[in-house]
């Protein structure tokens, strides 16, 4: 490989490659609302699933289904092997080691796991090793105004349980996190800085490097909500330098019901357990219990094995296509989506240029409520999300109760976005808003 190869941008998907990708997703072939082809622009809410993921779940149930990490029979061995291979695939997908990946029911559960680990440490659990996670009244947890509720409410609750104080960065008119007051927001009392990698509303890529550097200066832990980045960009979590990260399978072509907490190994080693019960213990007596090493310490009860296997396959599917190429394709889609700013009366909430932003575009239409916008689009077979997208503070910041949101994924085509823009063009006339 020459130096030129390493800097050459990834190649765009060819038309035939994109057609092959789409053919892999059975749901994309269906019609809606009386025979109209589906134009699915709601992948930021949940993505569709390729055949290999669906087949992996079926194959697991048909051939390997057994409880993992117990039993010495062949099926138990094969199920455990499938479960742990999936962990390795997901770990490798984000540049992590197997031991740094904890299965959770989703990203929300992963963030809550971190919050409750701090809580339990504060209550004295976890012994000396967990002292580093203890919070004192007056300690500070920092978030941003752009967060999804899943990366906000758990921290509000942690503050309420511990006496810590929640602080946050605001968002500028361009929809980007405003770090102009970084040195006054992140300070000596800051213990945790939690932020999204990519906003699920504005599509803006967050200032990860700056926040990680600021947190490190004061010895605070960083928690990254990577739900909207991992399915769309090459992401190397250790390289980003975050302490914790969460993402879900269902937004990255995988099944629902499974997600991941990534944490640096030494942190997982020191964290007290959160959900307790079977499968996460070493020795249990009537008086006391000792706990398994991570990641099992955080995986109590029977796990979502088939879904985990599906997530591993989804990661491999994306890996084979190449995340750099996925990102390149979606960059083109982002530019196409942003052309809605050419439509009179349409206003985008978030950056209107393609720099450091992904193909997630929220917008309002003057004089027409978002719900009504989406209904007209739905009538053309076009699926967009409507509402506050679990980010009420961000919507309040922009003075709107609801927006419509169009979001793309690897299988989205330029033609679909053209159809979306055409349908959107007629919305104001339909409601007499012109």
């Amino acid at each position: 490989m020459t130096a030129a190869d390493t800097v050459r941008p990834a190649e765009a998907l060819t038309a035939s490659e994109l057609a092959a990708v789409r053919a892999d997703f059975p749901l994309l072939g269906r019609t809606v609302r009386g025979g109209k082809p589906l134009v699915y622009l709601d992948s930021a809410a949940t993505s569709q699933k390729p055949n290999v993921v669906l087949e992996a779940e079926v194959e697991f149930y048909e051939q390997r289904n057994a409880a993992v990490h117990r039993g010495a029979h062949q099926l138990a061995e094969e199920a455990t092997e499938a479960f742990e291979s999936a962990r390795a695939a997901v770990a490798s997908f984000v540049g992590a080691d197997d031991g740094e990946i904890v299965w959770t029911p989703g990203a929300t559960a992963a963030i809550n796991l971190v919050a409750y680990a701090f809580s339990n440490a504060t209550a004295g659990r976890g012994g000396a090793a967990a002292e580093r996670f203890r919070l004192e009244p007056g300690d500070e947890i920092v978030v941003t105004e752009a967060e999804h509720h899943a990366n906000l409410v758990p921290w509000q609750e942690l503050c309420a349980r511990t006496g810590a104080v929640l602080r946050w960065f605001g968002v500028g008119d361009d929809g980007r996190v405003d770090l102009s007051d970084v040195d006054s927001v992140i300070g000596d009392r800051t213990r945790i800085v939690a932020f999204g990698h990519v906003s699920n509303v504005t599509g803006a890529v967050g200032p990860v490097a700056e926040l990680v550097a600021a947190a490190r200066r004061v010895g605070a832990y960083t928690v990254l909500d990577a739900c909207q980045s991992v399915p769309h960009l090459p992401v190397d979590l250790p390289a980003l330098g975050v302490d914790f990260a969460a993402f879900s399978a269902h937004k990255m072509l995988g099944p629902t019901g499974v997600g991941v907490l990534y944490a640096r190994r030494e942190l997982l080693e020191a964290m007290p357990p959160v959900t307790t019960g079977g499968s996460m213990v070493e020795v249990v007596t009537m008086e006391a219990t000792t706990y398994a090493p991570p990641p099992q310490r955080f995986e109590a009860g029977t796990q979502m094995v088939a879904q985990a296997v599906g997530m591993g396959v989804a990661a491999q599917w994306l890996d084979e296509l190449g995340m750099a190429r996925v990102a390149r394709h979606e960059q083109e889609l982002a530019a196409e989506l942003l052309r809605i700013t050419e439509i009179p009366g349409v206003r985008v909430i978030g950056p209107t240029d393609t720099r450091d932003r992904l193909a997630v575009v929220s917008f309002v239409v003057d004089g027409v409520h978002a719900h009504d916008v989406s209904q007209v689009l739905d009538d053309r077979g076009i699926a967009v999300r409507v509402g506050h997208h679990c980010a009420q503070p961000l919507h309040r910041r922009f003075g709107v109760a609801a927006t419509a949101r169009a979001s793309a994924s690897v299988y989205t085509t330029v033609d679909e976005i053209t159809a979306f823009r055409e349908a959107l063009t007629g919305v104001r006339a339909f409601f007499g808003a012109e």
Partner: protein
Amino acid sequence: MSGSLEQMYQQVILDHAKHPHGRGLVEPAAGHLAGESHQVNPTCGDEVTLRVDVRTDDVGPAVVSGVSWEGQGCSISQASVSVMTELVTGREIADVRQLDATFHALMASRGKGLDDDAALDALGDGEAFTGVSQYPARIKCALLGWAALKDSLARSGALADPTGGTDD
């Protein structure tokens, strides 16, 4: 636009949404029962604050003498509050309960409407919401104002009034 979309956004709904009745909160009349309710649709952020004014006297049954409201939301929710305001103003509490039950039945009809023509006629412009009942996600929009009315009547004490019929 397809037929079902036109069915949903009938002109009467679009007209009510553009020129809603009863918008702007009004102080209740002296001596009347009054109740206020704030309702939110958490999925889309639509909200309405509705105030009801109930005239009670010794001679006849309690009557909804005034409905006023403030709110923001989609055309379905705004039009529905407007239609409801027109429909229930000046009506006895028992009639309002009946209208509420009829409108809920219409919303549960999955676009089929109601067999009971007389009940449907009683809904006036409310009949135009038949098309909305085809869309499960939008039914809550149409019911937002009705939820606020029911709650504000309960808060006014009018439902406990023996002339207002039995409270459920």
